[in-house]
């Protein structure tokens, strides 16, 4: 009876191996698991009085590939997590016993398990290396870009403007916080409201993360003729509560615009005296040191901008 049982088991394991070669791991493990225990082997090895139950289990494993997550394999056979050191020798002994009884099946299974482990480790190692290298490359790219933007050295000068409450503000007032700066005008048909909505969304989403410093959104007008303090006050309240509008005399505004190389050109006036100002559509990111770090055009949505700002904040802390 015993031999019949072992024959069935052997056939099952062979099928399992075929399954592995054929790429069907599920069939492999399924077949390997469904093997009956060889009671004779168990009787020979259950010498330890320490954990009789565990001994039985550990000797069971080399026979049947009983794969619980704890039974991670190695060349020396599986062992239960809770077992004492003394039991480590037991599976080896068990293997020797089983080897004498059925060389093909055990060695084949051992080789299979070893192969699997080795493949997994190797694959894991490869993946880990690839991941690490990719992150290093990305970090390098970011650093390079920051260096390039520093060379361009936008926003090095100082500006002195009036905010939408009539208080004078200079660039120094904003040192110590991250700034998202946008140049526009209140009579803008669609672009400026869209961009300011985007900035508001970015700031709101960054606000949700308590670990990040608060971002200060700024709106500087390129149309000082019409955008006085009152006009700005009316305008900014439609957007993020922290948004500060900045204006001044045409000279002051020109200085601020030039600092960021902002192009602005008022169009022809119509009979109402209304006109559209053609201008650069960019959102600038300035770090707490007042250094221009990055810019975002119309193609970037609020999620991408928020992600970029987060990355800049993280690398700023590191440096």
């Amino acid at each position, binding site marked *: 009876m015993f031999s019949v049982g072992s024959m069935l088991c052997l056939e099952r394991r062979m099928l399992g191996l075929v399954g592995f070669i054929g790429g069907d791991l599920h069939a492999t493990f399924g077949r390997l698991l469904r093997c009956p225990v060889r009671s004779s082997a168990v009787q020979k090895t259950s010498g330890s009085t320490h954990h009789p139950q565990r001994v039985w289990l550990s000797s069971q494993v080399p026979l049947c590939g009983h794969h619980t997550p704890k039974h991670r394999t190695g060349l020396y056979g599986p062992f239960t997590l809770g077992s004492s050191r003394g039991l480590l020798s037991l599976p080896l002994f068990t293997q020797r016993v089983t080897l004498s009884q059925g060389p093909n099946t055990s060695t084949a299974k051992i080789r299979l398990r070893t192969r699997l482990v080795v493949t997994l480790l190797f694959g894991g190692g490869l993946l880990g290396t690839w991941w690490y290298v990719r992150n290093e490359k990305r970090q390098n790219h970011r650093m390079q870009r920051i260096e390039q933007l520093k060379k361009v050295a936008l926003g090095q000068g100082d500006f002195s403007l009036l905010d939408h409450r009539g208080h004078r503000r200079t660039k120094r007032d904003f040192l110590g916080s991250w700034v998202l700066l946008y140049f526009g005008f*209140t*009579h803008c048909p669609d672009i400026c*409201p869209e961009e300011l909505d985007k900035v508001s969304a970015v700031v709101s989403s960054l606000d949700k993360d308590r670990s990040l410093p608060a971002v200060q959104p700024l709106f500087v007008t390129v149309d000082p003729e019409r955008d006085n303090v009152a006009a700005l006050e*009316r305008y900014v309240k439609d957007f993020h509560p922290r948004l500060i509008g900045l204006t001044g005399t045409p000279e002051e505004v020109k200085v601020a615009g030039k600092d960021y190389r902002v192009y602005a050109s008022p169009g022809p006036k*119509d009979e109402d005296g209304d006109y*559209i100002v053609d201008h650069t559509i960019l959102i600038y990111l300035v770090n707490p040191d007042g250094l221009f770090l990055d810019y975002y055009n119309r193609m970037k949505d609020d999620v991408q901008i928020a992600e970029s700002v987060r990355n800049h904040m993280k690398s700023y802390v590191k440096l």
Partner: protein
Amino acid sequence: MSAPDSKQRKACWGTRDELWKCLDYNQDNAASCEKFQKEFEASCPAQWVKYFTKRRDFLKYKEKMQTEGFEPAAGPKESQS
């Protein structure tokens, strides 16, 4: 003349979208969309009407270029030297 506030902006964009929908439906036949045109002009400042009209022309042009293709303009002719 003060700038339109958020509500006025949204109203203007609404009428603009209605007009553009009508024009799309009628293959840019302006005559069939006169009602929307009037609404649009009433709710938006004149400069914005001009701006959005030009914008639509540009978008249609862009679409045409993208779907029908175009012949690249000939470069500067070589001068006889």
